[in-house]
């Protein structure tokens, strides 16, 4: 029996015990670029020939398929599934039907306790829970017709990040840094910020799955006061930097001798590169996470809450060329007491996020930074049966709202619509895959062509689906 192609899977297959370097790949296979897509080829820049030449590293900036307006992304994940009919999708029919059956749904209509008023030149109605964000509607494209597959938090949360329900697949951020690299080689190109707890689904939400680990998101707990705690081991408590530099140079020399005996094993070379990045991270990342370096005026824009801190860090990262930052802004699972609880959740994010948009604009970064806000699914227009005296709303995957701003987005847009009661997307439905396709589009990628060969198949973020929502782009 001769070996078939599947046995000799590509260099990026999961079969590889470690990351292959470009050099090793070339040495080992000679040719073979044919089996990799364009982006696969781009991904070949895994390691430079010269260990100290970081520019050629795996995260070196790369060109997308076509020039994209957006150069980087902040995804604010409103985890918990915010209610659309209480935020961005007003439904007067719920008032007229209050307490009555909603056709096609179990349960009775629960009108929103919140008032919607029109804002901006576009006159888009926004719920009173977002007084500050409302001032930015002219920057936003609000998609009111989102839908997803499963109304369960963990699955849907991971699905929003990976487009996959069960099998481990790379996250949106991983695909983005795989395709675009990062503009700063001294900080991870893909960072996930969380105030404390892990989100449902844990590290699946920033996994690179079958993409090389270098495209995995770095999760940082911003609950900590200092960067030394946010990023573990970011500082050496014994050695000053110059002494550590000397030590690291000796490590490299030892490693070179060690590798000679093994004729350049890929994993060993990858280590060398990782050490160098770690060394540089010590200074750059420390600076990036230190919001005390911001002016009082800037800090005031964001406020002092946990979300304010996260978003300000996110902006500092964007400025430094980090490609993709996900900000976890959880707490939207309002089964009961929606009036109080949603108000509270909205309050946590309203001012800081509005502050971010203002700040990005002031710095001329908004045009090139795509900001996305949204949850993993939406909520029902009906009263949650668990709600009792202070009702809330149950899970609903069939309709919800998400908005995008900056990065080539046509502001003041409302796209798609749910039905009369807000429970189901009926006009121009936008699936999670479509949102993914659109985010990649904003960055200059044809989502069907950003592929990676693994286990004999070309995989992409949008699986076999996805349609770019063109009308939301300017």
């Amino acid at each position, binding site marked *: 029996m001769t070996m078939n192609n599947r046995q000799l*899977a590509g260099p990026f297959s999961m*079969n590889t015990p470690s990351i292959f370097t470009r050099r090793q790949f070339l040495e080992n296979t000679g040719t073979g670029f044919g089996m990799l897509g364009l982006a696969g080829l781009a991904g070949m820049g895994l390691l430079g020939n010269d260990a100290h030449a970081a520019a050629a590293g795996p995260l070196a900036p790369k060109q997308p398929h076509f020039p994209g307006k957006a150069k980087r992304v902040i995804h604010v994940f409103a985890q918990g599934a915010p209610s659309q009919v209480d935020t961005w999708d007003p439904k007067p029919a719920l008032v007229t039907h209050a307490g009555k059956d909603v056709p096609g749904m179990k349960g009775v209509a629960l009108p929103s306790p919140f008032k919607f008023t029109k804002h901006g030149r576009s006159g888009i109605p926004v719920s009173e829970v977002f007084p500050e964000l409302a001032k930015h509607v002219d920057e936003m494209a609000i998609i009111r017709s989102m839908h997803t597959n499963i109304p369960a938090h963990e699955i849907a949360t991971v699905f929003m990040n990976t487009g996959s329900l069960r099998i481990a697949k790379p996250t949106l951020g991983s695909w983005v840094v795989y395709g675009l690299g990062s503009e700063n080689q001294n900080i991870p190109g893909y960072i996930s910020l969380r105030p404390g707890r892990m989100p449902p689904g844990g590290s699946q939400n920033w996994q690179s799955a079958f993409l090389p680990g270098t495209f*995995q998101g770095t999760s940082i707990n911003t609950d900590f006061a200092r960067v030394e705690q946010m*990023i573990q081991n970011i500082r*050496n*408590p014994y050695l000053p930097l110059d002494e550590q530099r000397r030590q*690291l140079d000796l490590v490299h020399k030892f490693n070179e*001798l060690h590798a000679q005996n093994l004729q350049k094993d890929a994993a060993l070379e990858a280590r060398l590169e990782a050490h160098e990045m770690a060394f540089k991270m010590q200074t750059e990342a420390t600076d990036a996470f230190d919001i005390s370096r911001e002016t009082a005026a800037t800090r005031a824009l964001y406020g002092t809450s946990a979300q304010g801190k996260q978003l300000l860090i996110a902006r500092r990262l964007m400025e430094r060329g980090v490609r993709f930052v996900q900000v976890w802004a959880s707490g939207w699972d309002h089964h009961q007491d929606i009036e109080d609880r949603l108000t509270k959740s909205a309050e946590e994010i309203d001012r800081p996020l509005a502050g971010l948009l203002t700040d990005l604009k002031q710095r001329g970064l908004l045009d090139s930074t795509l900001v996305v806000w949204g949850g993993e699914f939406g909520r029902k227009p009906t009263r949650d049966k668990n709600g009792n005296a202070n009702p809330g709303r149950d899970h609903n995957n069939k309709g919800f709202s998400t908005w995008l701003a900056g990065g080539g987005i046509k502001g003041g847009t409302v796209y798609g619509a749910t039905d009369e009661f807000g429970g189901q997307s009926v006009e121009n439905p936008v699936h999670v895959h479509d949102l993914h396709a659109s985010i990649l589009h904003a960055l200059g990628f044809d989502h069907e062509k950003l592929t990676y060969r693994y286990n004999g198949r070309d995989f992409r973020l949008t699986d076999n689906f996805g349609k770019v929502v063109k009308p939301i782009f300017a």
Partner: protein
Amino acid sequence: MNRTLTLFAVWTLAASPLVAAEQPITKAQSEFFESKIRPILADNCYKCHSATADKVKGGLVVDTREGLLKGGETGPALVPGNPDKSLLIRAVRYDDSDLQMPPKGKKLTAQQIADLTAWVKMGAPDPRKAAAAAKYKDPREAGKSHWAFKPVQKQTPPSVKESSWVKMPVDNFILAKLDENGMKPNAPADRRTLIRRAYFDLIGLPPTPAQVEEFVNDTSSDAFARVVETLLKSPQYGERWGRYWLDVARYSDTKGSVKKKQEDDKYPYAWTYRDYVIKAFNDDKPYNRFIVEQLAADRLASPDKTTLAAMGFLTVGERFMNNQNDIINDRIDTTTKAFLGLTVACARCHDHKFDPVPTADYYSLHGIFASSTIPGELPVIGKPANEAKYAEFQQKLATLKKADATYEAQMKAAKKAKDRKKAKSLQYKSAEIDSKIADLELKDAGSPPKAMIMVDKPRPSDSPIFIRGEADSKGPVVPRRFLEVLSGPARPTFHNGSGRLELAQAIADPKNPLTARAAVNRIWLHHFGEGIVTTPDDLGIMSDPPSHPELLDFLAAYFIEHGWSTKEMHRLIMNSAAYQQSSANNSKFAQLDPMNRLLWRANVRRLDFESMRDSFLFIGGKLSAQMGGAGTNLFSEPYSTRRSVYGYLDREAMPETLNHFDFANPDMATGKRYNTIVPQQSLFLMNSPLVVEQAKNLVRRAEFTAAKTDEDKLDVLYRIVYARPARAEEVKLSMAYLAETKPYRSVTAAPQQVTNAKTQKKKQNNKKRPEAYVEPFKARAPLGSWEELAHTLLIANEASFIN
């Protein structure tokens, strides 16, 4: 554009409600079909959508009426009488941009579309005989011919030309394949490399310099075999290999998501399962017995009560806010992945897309687990760590329980009085007591160990199929029994209690084609860094074919014949020439087989986190030999010296360092960890006091301080850390480094923290997340030059890679 349908595929039951009753067809209808419709379908669709297609696309066949009605992955293709709702018509009309048939612009003519539309409108009369349907292979049927579902075939090792290379029968298989592909195995690894490899492989620790020298100087032919025997007898073997199984068993000391205001999220006795697993490996418990104990120890008559702890396999999983169906799903998922290498949980909402596992089979297993429950009182299986403290423990427990009962009674009263606010606050109080009880049970020296068992419910029952996985849309009830693909269509139904014991026996049956294959593949994986099948938890149709199918069967048969002994497998594998090869590269073979699937060399492997940390502690002379007991925090100072396998694992707050080193996700069975190299690992090696302190310990060791010259000192370090003397060039580099080391100022601590460390610690402790606590940054005294050099050796690759 209906994606819900796309994702939920078709739900195929024998009595599919989608198949409409046959209606008699008139002659005119039949003629219309034959003259207009059949040619369109045959010319444009059959190539991809018929029983004769090479590969049926999208699961849809259109060569029978049944096929059209049943449809494919996007749902029924036909709604008789309603063309607008028929996907077939929508597709040929090119209504949706993502469903256009025939594809690639080969759109039918307007007349053809009109004919099809008319045909559907008249109810899609179809004279084609159902006979054609029999030819169509359901993916489920096709799947049954997959290699992994066929019986294990006993294999005779193939004959090979270079028979002198062969040490064990596995070598025949490896060499024959290499030979076939024009490759040769590497020369044997040198003795130092080999003994280091063997030590890390079996006990997860390096050999001491004395052990290395003894082996290097032992020229007897069985020297290596004796090393293997010694290691198999070491209790540290179970700590190494038990951890691999704990990855598969998604082990954690906490429940994951629970209603924290109602219950505590700790498993105070999860560690009894961990200890059971370690002991099972040390005792070389026959694997078939290991299976049965983990699924049904409650039903076995065993004089050893500690075997009850085996059932933690089922019960240490996530608790999903007490959603019973999710808990059952986790148990089905873990059981089938762990023992069978089959992803049965994929069939929860629809028939398995690839493997022959219908939804009905999933709910057969569902019934078994739904008929089992965790008893209110867990059985005590041993004595407390400190027996003298037992009475005191009981007293403390009684006090807490009494307080709990009082709160609960008051809460009931408050509820009755409709005082919701009071009831709520009492519930919190009661939950606080629950946490105190859990803490006491977990940490008190007088707390006796208990087993996290399950028992059969008094009235076991079968489960209905949940259509699309939704509990409130129930389909037919299916009997409790094993999977059809593994036990045939005439499989018996289970009647012995819940059926858990029968399930366990069906899994452990030597005739089960998957069980032994999955087990030996896992063992192979951990010796070579890659399995014969690369996906140890999925041997199904989506897995890549085995690199050496005959060898896999040989190993499986050998395993069963040798009493399902894992240690026998280690002997078989480690005494082989294939295992003992060097890891040197060969550019020609690397080109032919870059993944080293055929094993022309030994793989260079990065140590997993546990082996790395444990070996650093061992090198520093600090590793504790203490076994068993409640989990310990590995990451806060003063650092625990216990082996990493005893680290406390909170699935909701996994220590970040573990994540950075690709530790197994405790929410799912993990047969193979990722193997990434990221800067955060470098930061740990370069900066973590946990590592640096071990370097400091290393130069405090007596061997080091007793060495007279700098060269001697360096030699001691190299032998301890790398199991070899330093080479000339390394000596030169090191001496130069020492000579150039100048005194430097200590690092200045960061300015006072915004949040006070104490408050933060308190805050985090309140969250009951001790492992997630991160020490504030503290500047420390500068390192001495030797400390710095020792640390350098730990950072360098040789310390954390096995050749």
